[in-house]
Every structure is written in C-alpha cells, then in structure tokens.
C-alpha cells in the first residue's frame, strides 16, 4: 500500500513539475517575444513621428475618464497632472461615484466648477443615478459627473463614456500618474492603423518609493517595503513583458483599467463596461475580441510598452490579498462568461491559445501549485519522498521562476532602465529570488480563495481598499512646487482601484 501511495505521489509531483516547466517555458517565450518587440520599438524611435502626431490637427481627440470614489487626498493633483499631459486635444472626465468624503468639494473649489444642464447621451447603460454634470468656469477641459454609486467601477466608467465627447475614450485610475508623453504614445496605433485599431493599453508600474513632482514621476526608485518591491518585479514580468509578448502575437486579453484606450463607438456598440463584472477591463476586451471575430472584421488590440502609468501598489498583506482575490475572481468571471470562446476555432488564437492558457495556467495554476506543495509535504512527513530529491525538486521548480524574473530584469535594464541606482538593481535581484519563497505560495493561496469565491458566487468586498496616498512635501530646491513621495499608509476608505 505504502509503495502504491509513494508511486502515486511521485507521479503527481512529476506532473506538477512538468506543469511548472511548461508554464514557465510558455512565459519565457512570451518574455522573449516581448524583448523582440521592445527592440523593434527602440530601433524605430528616431522616426516614430510623435512630433507630427502632436502638431497634427487630425490626431484624434481623447476623453480621459477617471472613475473616482473617495479620492479627496489626491484627486485635484491627479486632474491637474492629467491636464498637463502632452497631447493636442483631450478632456478629463472625472466621475465622482458616490464619494462620501470631500472628493467633489475639493474639485469644486480647485476648478471653480459650475453645473451644466445635463446633455450627455444615454449611449451606454448606467445603473447609478446621475446627479449632475459640472465644468470649470474658466473653460479648462474638465467635466465632473456626479452619480450615485452602484458599487461598480465599470458603472462609473460608463457614466464617463456617456459624458465623453471624443472618439477615443481612455480609462484610468484617479490616483494614476501618467508619463507626460503617455497619451501620444498610446494613441499612436489608432493613428497608424485607424481602420483596425480598437483598443490599446499601456504599462502599469508601481509608484511606491518614487519621487513625484507636479504629477510626474521624476525619479523612479524601488519601494521601501518588501511587499511593494515584490510587486515591482511582478509588474515588470507580467504587465510589461507578459502583455507585450501577448500583444506581439495578437493575443492580448487584458488591458489594465488603470490605463486603457478604447474606440468609443465600439465600446458604445458593446454597451460599455458590463455591470456586475468584476474584471470589467478584461471583460470588455474579451467582448471586443468576440464582436470583431464574430463579424470576421480585422482588428488590432495592442499593448504599447513605452507609455507608463504609475500607480500605488498595496503595502499590506491584507490589502494585497484582497486585491489578488478580486483579480482571481475577475478572471474566473471573464472566462466563465466567455466560455463559448475557449477552444473555439472561430475565435482564432484568442479562442485556441490565449483563453486555454488562462484557464490552464492562470485559473487552475494555484490549484495545481498548492496541491503539488501539499502532497510533497505530506510525502515528506510520512517518509514517502526522499528529502534530498524533494529539495532538488523545489529548487528546480522555483529556480525556473527566478530565471524568468532575472530575464525580465535584463530586458528592463537593456531597454527602459527606469531604476537608475545600483542599489535598486541589487534590490531587484534579491527580490527575484525572495518572491519565490513564501510570497509565491501565499499568492497562490489568495488566488485559490478568489477562485473559490467565484465558484460559490459570493458577493465581493470589492469597494474597500487602503488609500495610501502620495504624501506631499515642499521641495526646498524649487520655489513653490510640490514633491510627492509615495510611501506609507495613511488611511482606509472605499475606492476604485484596478490592476
């Protein structure tokens, strides 16, 4: 009996190892593709034509929608920073989604808002009652829509889409810090290929620890907290390189709600963000793929690796755990809603490669990872596994993960190299090892719990997130302006945050 159990355990662990190898090899392939794409972008930088884009009267105007809930700490700074983006014509549509703090009052006093008679079309359904539309008296291109909250960021974004006047709608977070040229770069695919491009997304990076001056990251640094440092590497590997790789093979399924651009007419045709969707950003992109594939219409959904949206990442386990559970549940929700696409040749590589990958490696990954870990531990406890072999087994499985992080670091170093200090590079290398021991397993546990919540269809505690905020201090070197250093927790309030 003991031999049978040992054989089964051994076979299962071999399966888990094989699973890890396939997963990591797949990911390594994506990272290599991303590296090729980044080289492609870099080689073309000199003749990319951003100046022409900036000066052209034909560059499409953009409405940047900022769903905001209880963002009084930074909403004014955020909107002012958005207004100073380098782009020929755009407006900022802030949707105050039932804030219970002074978000609206801050905006009203900072921008001298006056109420406009409501004139927005009902192009996409909005569940929360619209309370009014406000604009600055001095004509600055800001629109503030006040609405009752329905507990969904997608619903707030839909209200913003209705109020948006321009053909491209960008959705971003109220606390996002965008690079000055980010709009120009993320809109360029719409100009280069206006017939086919229907959505683009930009890179999201962790702003914790960086120096922010007048709403711009002027000095990127590694955060002080280890948890945030781990997320820096994660974001680099998954958001920058993973998504760039997917985009290279036309398989981008997720555009971050923190920084995504969409053709308004397509979004309207799809009915906007789906109310009740947890991963509303991925859900919208999946529906875009579905619509275009079913119509057999050529299209492009592109990830642009260069424009950066800096966002604050959680620095406490509780908040991070909640965020990751929500992401896992969101993914399950999207895959379940669009299950018809999975493995369906009608949807091309999205149906045949991308969605199956998400099911097998992203959705079921934590189940297999934690099962493998548990059985190995049981085998060790009951003496069914050789400790030496088990140690080697773990070292190989985790070592491949470390290798992926280091490859990501190398590509970052050879391309964007945002973290200039040697110390930050050293920290990043240490984090590449450390994240695989402890954090990775904890992350799998959070994802498993998210999946379980999805299976049980439990209501999500989705609104409550810790608002850390950009602590501001006067810059002694410069007269007047404000320097912000993203660090330290200050308060907890419900807010809309995305991945």
């Amino acid at each position, binding site marked *: 009996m003991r031999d049978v159990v040992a054989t089964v355990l051994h076979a299962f662990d071999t399966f888990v190892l094989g699973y890890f190898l396939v997963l990591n090899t797949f990911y390594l392939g994506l990272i290599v593709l991303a590296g090729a794409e980044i080289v492609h972008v870099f080689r073309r930088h000199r003749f990319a034509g951003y100046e*022409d884009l900036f000066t052209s009267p034909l560059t499409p105007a953009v409405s940047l929608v900022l769903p905001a809930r209880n963002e009084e700490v930074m909403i004014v700074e955020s909107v002012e920073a958005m207004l100073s983006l380098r782009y020929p014509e755009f407006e900022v549509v802030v949707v105050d989604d039932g804030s219970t703090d002074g978000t609206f009052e801050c905006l009203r006093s900072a921008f001298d808002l006056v109420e406009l008679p409501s*004139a927005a079309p009902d192009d996409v359904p909005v569940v929360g009652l619209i309370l009014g539309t406000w*604009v600055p*008296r001095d*004509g600055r291109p800001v629109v503030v829509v006040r609405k009752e909250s329905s507990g969904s960021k997608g619903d707030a974004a839909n209200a913003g889409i209705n109020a948006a006047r321009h053909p491209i709608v960008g959705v971003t977070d109220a606390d996002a810090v965008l690079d000055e040229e980010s709009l120009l770069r993320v809109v360029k695919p719409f*100009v*280069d290929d206006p017939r086919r491009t229907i959505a683009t997304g930009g890179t999201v990076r962790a702003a914790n620890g960086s120096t922010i001056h007048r709403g711009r990251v002027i000095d990127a640094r590694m955060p002080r907290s280890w948890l945030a440092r781990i997320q820096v590497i994660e974001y680099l590997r998954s958001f920058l390189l993973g998504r760039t790789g997917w985009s290279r093979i036309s398989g981008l399924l997720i555009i971050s709600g923190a920084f995504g651009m969409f053709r308004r007419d397509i979004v309207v045709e799809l009915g906007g963000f789906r109310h009740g969707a947890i991963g509303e950003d991925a859900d919208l992109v999946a529906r875009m793929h579905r619509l275009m594939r079913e119509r057999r219409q050529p299209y492009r959904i592109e990830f642009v690796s260069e424009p950066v949206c800096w966002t604050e990442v959680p620095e406490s386990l509780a908040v991070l755990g909640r965020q990751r559970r929500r992401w896992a549940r969101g993914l399950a929700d999207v895959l379940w809603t669009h299950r018809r696409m999975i493995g369906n040749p009608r949807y091309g590589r999205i149906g045949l490669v991308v969605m199956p990958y998400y099911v097998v490696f992203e959705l079921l990954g934590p189940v297999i990872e934690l099962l493998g870990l548990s059985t190995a531990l049981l085998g060790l406890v009951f003496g069914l596994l050789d400790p030496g072999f088990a140690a080697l087994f773990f070292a190989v499985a985790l070592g491949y993960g470390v290798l992926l992080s280091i490859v990501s670091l190398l590509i970052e*170093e050879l391309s964007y190299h945002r973290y200039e200090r040697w110390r930050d590079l050293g920290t990043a290398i240490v984090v590449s090892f450390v994240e695989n021991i402890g954090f990775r397993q904890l992350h799998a546990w959070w994802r498993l719990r998210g999946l379980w919540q999805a299976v049980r269809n439990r209501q999500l505690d989705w609104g409550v997130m810790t608002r850390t905020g950009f602590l501001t201090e006067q810059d002694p070197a410069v007269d007047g302006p404000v320097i912000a250093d993203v660090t330290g927790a200050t308060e907890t309030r419900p807010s809309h945050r995305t991945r």
Partner: protein
Amino acid sequence: MSGVQVMTWSLAILAAAMTALLVMTAVGRLLRLRRRRRREHLRDKLRPAVVALLAEPDGELQLPSTGRRTEDLFEVLSLDYLAKVRGESREALVRELDARGTVVAAERRVGRWGGVGRASAAELLGRCGLPRSRDPLLGLLTHRSAEVRRVGVRALGRLGDPETVAPLLALVDAKRSVPAATVTQALMRVGAVGAPALRSALRSGSPVQRAVAAETLGLQRAVEAVPDLVVNLDDDNAEARVRAAGALGRIGDPRAFEPLVRSLNTDVSLRVVAAHALGDLGDPNAVSTLVDLLDGARHDVVTAAAESLTRCGPDGLVALRRCTDRGGDGFRQARAALARFELGRSPTNVEADYIQFPVT
C-alpha cells in the same frame, strides 16, 4: 540517469543561466552608463558649435573632434534642430549636412534593404527638405512595410513639392496604403502650392482621394476651392460629401451657405457635419434651419445644431434661449449649449475625425 541526477543537472543549468544573466545585466548597465557619459561629454562639446552655426549661418562649423561618433551625434543633433529652426539657420544646417555627405549617404540608405535604415534615412531627408530627395523618397511609397511608407509620406510632405501631391493622394486607396490622416497631414505640409493639384483631385475617380483632397483643402483654408467643394456636396460617396461639408465650414466662405442648408435637407449622412459647418460660417440666416434640427431624433445632430446656434451671433443665442422651453433632447441640448457658450467652452470638433469617419 536517475531522477536525482536529472534534477541536479537541471539545477546546475539553471544556476549557470542565472549567473550568466546577472553578469549580463551588470555589464550591460556598466556599458550603458559609460556610453551615456561619453555621449553626454561629446554632446556638451558639440552643441556650442552647432548653436554657433545657427546663430551665424554664414560662419563655418567647427566640430570639436572628428570620427564616426562625432558625425553620428552631429546628425542626431542636427535632426533635433531642424525640427525647431527656420530660415537661414535651417539652410545653413542643411548645407552643412550636405557638405559632410550625410544627405548623400541617406539617399543611398533609402534604396538599401532593411526597413529601419530606409525609414531613418527618409526621416533625415524629409527634415532636410532638399528638392533632389523627391525621387528617392517616392520610391519608398510602395515599400512593403507600412511604417516605411508612413515615414516616406511624412518626409515627402516636408519637401513642399506640388509634384508629390498626386502620388501621395494615390496612396490612400493603393494596395499598400497609408492612413488618410497621415497623407492629409503631408499634403497640408506641401502647402498652398499643392492646392491646384488637390482641386483637380476633387474630380478624381477615387472617392477616397476626393475625400482626402477636400479635407486638405479645408485645412488649408483654400478659398479658391469653394466652388469645387460645393459640387462635391452632391458626391455619390458619403465620405466625400462629409469631408467637403467639413471643408466648407472650415474655409468659412459665405458662398457655401445655401449648398450646406440644402444638403441638410437632402442628405442624412452629412447632417451633423453640415450643421457644424453652418456654425463655422456663423451666418445668422442659418438660425431657423438650425432651430428646426433641434427637433430631430439624433443626438449628434441636435448637439451640433445647438452648438452651431451659439456661433450664429445674437440671433442664434436668442433663438436658442427661446428653444430652452421645448421638450425632448433639443431642449436639453439647447440649455447645455447655452451654458457652455456662456462659459466660453469650445464646441465639439466633429469634422476632422478620422476615427468616426475612417477614410481608409
């Protein structure tokens, strides 16, 4: 080989790969920092020489050193300055680039294999704007890479040569095409000398070319093209009609008034743009027509009509105020347009929108 041996070997390979990657990362950073330092040092020495040439175009350029690196950096710096300076300073810089053989080298590179080399050479030739670069650049318009074609189009536009209008226009519906917005911008750069060719293109057999020609003439405010554009309001193709209406609004010539009013009643497809164009004309005679549009069912038409009324002078505002007691979407839009006008907010720009009306 036993399981333990396989694992041990795998681990050893992983460790070796990790070590190699870490070394590459560190060496890569060291090399990059060294390269940057050198480049900055050279740039600091080079910049005063270039600025001196721009300040005294008749003077002679004295580069602080010689060699490939200096020449490359001079080319990069020159490209930056060419985008910023005009007149004699610009000519001096182009002359210097030509004298150093940079332009000839770029002309050679345009014909070579490889998209990146061709495109970067085309960018340089476009910035220099020498007439002799026309033929090498025209050769890029059929290149298989869309990117090379786009850069070629932009570069040709900068030459300001009317002979390039026809080949540029032909690109919008060629098998290897270039987006209409890119071509339109290049045609705008060609300037007024290209207007006759654009007017001829309004009678082209291609509806897409007619649309782009109309759009460009509108952006150039080509008053002499008004009669031709009025004819295009009755074009068979909706896109060409829409662009002609938008162009007439931009030009703002009163001769367009009657045809635009007529097109409102006959053509649903260009109602929004025509309503907006009437606002651009600002003719008080358009008030009653625009007020009628406020009763329409389409939100975009009602919005355009309400916003245009605010630009038709006091008569438009009076009419708009009267309309605020009406029911329906028109009432809401009238109130909103009035409020926006009183706040000095700009109306929605509808006609220059290649996303809403993709020509290609």
